[in-house]
């Protein structure tokens, strides 16, 4: 089945291009045969740079080898906001496709002039332009003649899908050789001339203030260059990394802190979330059309805990001042947004600050990348023009970086006499899922709240539904219920710091919706697959569910100790479609043996890249579901090591099979967050299938299973 591609309106530019229309900000051609491509989106371990290079090479008709991808910098790159929300292919990819299509056309016009032939008679192969009678020139020859200092023209038509040669190929990623051959590529591995090493002192207790600081011990450490203190912000920098560590250790001994703020009871998150001052919003209402009478209402509550980003590499940044200008190297997801916050805090014009991206360890959302950049800027201010590199500790990474927000979700369904859903009421209690820098009247960076003249700690909010929502992401059901009401209650307090973690609220909402559907199907005695298909009219949704089910041979015969479950979502209700079937085995412990997924991202630019993202998402979600939960007592975060915050290990990793449904004629969407919700739900549903008990609180651990079985009727 194929449908016409949603054709771009002739009069408008893709969103990133409309914001950055100057063609030269995206592309540059050299006489030596190279094309420099400058996307505003950044590599965060997802392979995006390769996919964007593919799009550019394809549209320009040049070999990939000629493309040089340059990391985002406020000095030169288009401003594409933040690399998040699985939007890089959609936004940067689309912009690049249109830029390259137009630039190719400009070169063809210049070539036609020079060669004295019709433009339409010319063709391009690897940058060489040729036409009738063997006339030829090239992008490289014409590079000086074609002015890209002009704005993009609306209405340009890129190549049709059938003429693309690279998009749709599993081209090898361009960053991998560096990473397996130990060539420095990560920010943690970059060394600047005369670089100093900095460390920042952070309290154990949440939001504790630094009352007293005895610096004597730290001053005695060899190599120490300076101690910086501003209110509760304190740090050191040294000629050596070892020296910085030793000085920090000494400084910690000399620090006296206030008690800090009280944290919630980690064992009753739902009660905490529901007892706080709230801002309530109706997200979506579907008024009843049938006016059917509910015979009974069933109501269930599902929760998920705070979840840590927990990248393997701690956050790192470098900063160097020159007079009243500062240069910052960062693995932030948004160089311009970080610059906005730095400008606010430093009271400097944005032009005085250059923020340049370097690759960091895997990024799954708003982690400490931006915070450590401010740390480096504050320390470097005292470094007399030398660059200062700051690296966070494992413990700080696990306790001071923002977390994915805990959620309590309650769904009530009015059922008719036959057990069909008449009305669906979904409510969410959660902190906001976004407190990114660069978007508010005050900085969102950690140290901003620690200074002697502090900014208040920014309470996280939620992006609007039009951008996919935050806590409410994926809360609007995709099923054809006759009526519904969806509400989000955002906390106005934030004792545990939260911001964007992969999928925002979608993992929690999909877990709740897909678990609840399963509960209703079970009550009806209906197969959960058939139940879902009956309630879905979107063909692409039905296709991924059928594909995953078929591949997993749904439903394998019941076997003791083994269970199967299914989960589905369309990410953000407008992104990638994904369905998952989980096979779990439960004896002493719960093991996910196998995950079978089907995914539809429209056009897959790099199919293996999409599959890699889905596999990774599926495995990370399995880790969240089986193991992860930020731990705290009433004073401090206690899960500060890998022992206290275990993640899935090699021996626990399920087999993962991914079927990609290719739709080259449809606009591409991102794959990075599509799998988490469906996999979470599929595992929970498989646990129910195996044991007949329903776990509604994540993570699904052995202890929770035992407790649920003991309280089962």
């Amino acid at each position, binding site marked *: 089945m194929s449908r016409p591609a949603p054709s771009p309106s002739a009069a408008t530019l893709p969103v990133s291009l409309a914001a950055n229309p100057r063609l030269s900000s995206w592309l540059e051609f050299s006489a030596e045969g190279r094309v420099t491509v400058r996307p505003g989106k950044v590599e965060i371990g997802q392979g995006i740079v390769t996919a964007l290079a593919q799009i550019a090479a394809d549209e320009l008709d040049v070999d990939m080898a000629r493309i040089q991808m340059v990391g985002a910098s406020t000095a030169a790159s288009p401003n594409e906001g933040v690399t998040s929300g699985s939007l890089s292919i959609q936004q940067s990819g689309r912009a690049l496709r249109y830029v390259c299509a137009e630039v190719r056309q400009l070169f063809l016009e210049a070539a036609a002039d020079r060669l004295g032939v019709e433009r339409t008679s010319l063709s391009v192969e690897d940058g060489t332009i040729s036409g009738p009678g063997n006339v030829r020139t090239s992008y490289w020859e014409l590079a000086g003649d074609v002015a890209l200092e002009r704005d993009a023209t609306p209405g340009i038509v890129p190549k049709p899908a059938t003429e693309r040669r690279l998009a749709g190929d599993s081209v090898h990623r361009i960053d991998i050789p560096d990473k*397996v051959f130990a060539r420095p590529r990560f920010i943690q591995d970059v060394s600047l001339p005369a670089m100093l090493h900095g460390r920042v002192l952070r309290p154990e207790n949440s939001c504790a203030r630094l009352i007293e600081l005895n610096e004597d011990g730290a001053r005695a450490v060899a190599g120490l260059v300076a101690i910086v203190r501003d209110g509760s912000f304190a740090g050191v920098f040294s000629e050596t990394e070892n020296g910085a560590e030793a000085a920090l250790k000494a400084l910690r001994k000399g620090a006296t802190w206030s008690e800090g703020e009280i944290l919630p009871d980690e064992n009753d998150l739902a009660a905490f979330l529901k007892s706080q001052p709230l801002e309530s919003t109706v997200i979506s209402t579907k008024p009843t059309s049938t006016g059917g009478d509910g015979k009974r209402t069933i109501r269930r509550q599902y929760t998920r805990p705070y979840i840590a980003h927990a990248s393997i590499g701690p956050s790192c940044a470098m900063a160097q001042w020159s007079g009243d200008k500062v240069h910052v190297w960062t693995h932030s997801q948004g160089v311009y947004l970080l610059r906005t916050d730095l400008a606010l805090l430093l009271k400097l014009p944005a032009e005085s600050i250059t923020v340049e991206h370097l690759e960091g360890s895997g990024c799954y959302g708003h982690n400490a990348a931006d915070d450590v950049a401010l740390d480096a800027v504050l320390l470097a201010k005292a470094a007399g023009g030398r660059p200062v590199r700051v690296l966070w500790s494992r413990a700080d990474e696990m306790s001071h970086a923002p977390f994915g927000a805990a959620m309590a979700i309650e769904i009530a369904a009015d059922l008719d006499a036959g057990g069909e859903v008449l009305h669906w009421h979904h409510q969410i209690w959660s902190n906001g899922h976004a407190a990114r820098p660069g978007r508010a009247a005050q900085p969102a960076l950690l140290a901003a709240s620690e200074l002697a003249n502090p900014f208040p700690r920014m309470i996280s909010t939620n992006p609007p539904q039009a951008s996919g929502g935050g806590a409410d992401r994926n809360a609007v059901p995709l099923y054809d219920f006759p009526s519904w009401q969806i509400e989000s209650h955002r906390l106005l307090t934030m004792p545990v710091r939260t911001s964007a973690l992969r999928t925002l609220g979608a993992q929690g909402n999909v877990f709740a919706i897909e678990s609840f559907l399963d509960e209703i199907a079970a009550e009806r005695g209906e197969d959960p697959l058939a139940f879902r298909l009956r309630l879905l009219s979107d063909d692409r949704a039905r296709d991924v569910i059928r594909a995953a089910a078929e591949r997993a041979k749904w439903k394998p015969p019941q076997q003791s100790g083994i269970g199967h479950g299914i989960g589905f979502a369309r990410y953000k209700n407008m992104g990638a479609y994904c369905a998952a079937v989980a096979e779990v085995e439960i004896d002493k412990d719960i093991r996910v043996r196998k995950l079978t997924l089907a995914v539809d991202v429209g056009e897959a630019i790099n199919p293996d890249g999409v599959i890699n993202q889905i596999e990774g998402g599926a495995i990370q979600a399995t880790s969240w579901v089986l193991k992860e939960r930020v731990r705290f007592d009433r004073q401090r975060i206690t899960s500060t090591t890998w022992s206290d915050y275990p993640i899935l290990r090699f021996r626990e990793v399920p087999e993962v099979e991914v079927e990609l449904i290719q739709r080259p004629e449809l606009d591409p969407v991102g794959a990075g967050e599509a799998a988490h919700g469906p996999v979470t739900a599929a595992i929970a549903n498989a646990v129910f299938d195996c044991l007949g008990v329903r776990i509604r609180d994540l993570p699904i651990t052995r202890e929770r299973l035992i407790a649920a079985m003991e309280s089962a009727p």
Partner: protein
Amino acid sequence: MPHVRFRLNGVEMNIDADLDRSLLDILRGRFGMTGPHFGCGAGECGACNVIVGDRAMSSCDMPLWSVADKDITTLEGLGSANAPHPLQRAFIAEQALQCGYCVSGILMSAAALLKRNPAPSRDEVKEALDRNLCRCGAHNRMVRAVLRAAAEMAAP
């Protein structure tokens, strides 16, 4: 300043250093190496793994004195783009990473495994990598890559 000798990627090293400093700190801080990565500082994640003798071990919690007279191999010593180790070739062929930060340590664990067991089973590979953490979820690709390298090394 005390003195210590060891072999690093086949080269004799003779250095003066505080013997309680970690091997990782010396490799990165003194020798400017970027193969071994700092991850946790507590020997819990494996990002800093190097091969000492014939075993993969974390270098962040390994005091310098403990490697006196030992043979140490880092990712830099495993192979290069011009002369890649089969594992490095296999990780590229399988596109066996996402961010790749953990891969430097995982390659060392895998190399140590293939040295002592040239034909590991899938489960043996998982077992050998179990102390290495990967947050991106590239585990299955990495296991495939190790099996591919083993097969390549076994081929006549």
